[in-house]
């Protein structure tokens, strides 16, 4: 039996051929090593994300998340829901809070869910994967599996917004969270706790709709990583990852910079440090190749 079991909410961007499919691949490898069993919530739907607000309204938005709660309760009773995406986690968690605090909203939600033949009896816990790692397993347990430390690699921990605000990880500050730096140290790499753009917004959905505004922010985030001597950036959020990685070429054209820094998920670092191959860590999913990690992943495992 697995050490820990959760109802898994992978989210749209994690699906095959989607923008964060490399995140999911690496999470699956990571969980295999850590003996964490993730069971996908059958027929889960989109959380609506923050950017749907123009037409989502209040109740329809919460009903979308509540459908996932109901499916989880029906098929995976008693299991906590775990999301890997910051927006999925935030959306679901917000719905959980709102429904728990409003009998009217809860009653309206139940009425709407009935149309899909579903119901909610218990409000599930909604966790982010990094919470599971830090709180349920702990740094010692995570470190135990490191067989190929990422020695000498300097990594800027970019936490971003939605894994950090408004909920965040318990015990961390909104202004200067440290958990990602600790995870970087845990895999044997060198962290940059003073990286001053670690909670700066990447522009979120504005990277699509008003790219010049988002790219001005992304420029600051990347520039500061270089200024601190980082070789790569690591993040827990799919949109942060994509925004900070894929527009570097356009930013170079606009600002005359020469950015070309890889942007990784924490799970990819962990898989390589746990002895996994480049394929296990989905390093082929990087638009800006992480050569240094590819080299390490090709080395034999210590001892």
């Amino acid at each position, binding site marked *: 039996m697995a050490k820990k079991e959760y109802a898994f909410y992978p989210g749209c961007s994690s699906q095959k051929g989607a*923008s964060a499919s490399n995140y999911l691949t690496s999470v699956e490898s990571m969980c295999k090593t850590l003996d964490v069993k993730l069971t996908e919530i059958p027929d889960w739907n989109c959380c609506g994300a923050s950017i749907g607000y123009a*037409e989502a309204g209040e109740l329809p938005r919460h009903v979308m998340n509540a459908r996932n709660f109901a499916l989880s309760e029906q098929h995976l009773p008693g299991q906590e829901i775990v999301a890997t995406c910051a927006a999925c986690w935030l959306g679901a968690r917000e719905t959980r809070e709102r429904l728990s605090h409003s009998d009217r909203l809860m009653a309206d939600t139940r009425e709407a869910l009935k149309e899909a033949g579903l119901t909610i009896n218990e409000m599930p816990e909604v966790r982010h994967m990094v919470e599971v790692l830090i709180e349920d397993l702990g740094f010692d347990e995570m470190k135990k599996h490191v067989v190929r430390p990422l020695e000498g690699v300097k990594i800027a921990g970019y936490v971003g917004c939605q894994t950090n605000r408004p909920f965040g990880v318990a015990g961390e500050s909104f202004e200067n969270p440290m958990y990602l730096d600790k995870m970087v140290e845990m895999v044997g790499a060198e962290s940059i706790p003073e990286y001053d753009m670690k909670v700066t917004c990447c522009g979120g959905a504005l990277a699509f709709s008003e790219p010049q505004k988002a790219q*001005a922010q992304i420029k600051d985030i990347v520039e500061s990583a270089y200024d601190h001597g980082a070789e790569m950036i690591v993040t827990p959020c799919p949109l942060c990852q994509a925004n900070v990685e894929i527009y570097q070429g356009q930013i170079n054209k606009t600002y005359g910079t020469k950015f070309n820094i890889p942007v990784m998920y924490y799970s990819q670092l962990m898989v390589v440090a746990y002895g996994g191959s480049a394929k296990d860590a989905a390093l082929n999913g990087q638009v800006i190749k992480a050569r240094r990690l590819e080299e390490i992943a090709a080395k034999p495992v210590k001892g």
Partner: protein
Amino acid sequence: MSANTAVAEKYRNNFLKEIEEQVEMGDWVKMCMQCGVCSGSCPTNFQSAWEHPPQELFMMIRAGKREEVLTTTSMWNCTSCYNCIVRCPRKLPITHIMHGIAEYAHRIGKAPKMQPTRFFSGLFWKNCTHTGRVNELKLSMGLYFKDGLGAGIKEGMKMKDVALGLMKAKRLNPFEILGGHKCKDQKGIQAMLAKAYEIERARKAAKMEG
């Protein structure tokens, strides 16, 4: 009577009451003490300046500046970073109030039609609720082609290298245009959402009468 005329007539000179009753989290507006921390914490206000940053919008609502508030592009600049929420000394859910005012302006037809994030926001919601899951390819194409075919091809060309990079990394699938990922119970999702809109509309209407 248009949606806008109906509410404007009902609330007449009390725009604050209109916001409180019709906007999600609108009843928090009166709690703002005008310290300005939200405006100083907003990344897009910092980069390019909102026409009216949040604390200014709150005062304008109280001053009854209905037309200016509902037609501004300001709240559509919100990136949902939640910095204003965690820093507000009075704990106003500012991000949600911004989304709420934007949604209301859009609902009654006052929001600026050509504002690109307003367009994208509606597009995203339609995209994800259509099959229950986001179709990333259709979402991007829908945005680029919003001003017609010619402009769309131009926008697409600008993003060509970004798209090619993603395709090579297998993170953008051109075949999503044929359908892509979806939920099985789409019928249930549509019925559930229709009911949710019906209930929400009835609740807002009841406030108009009450």
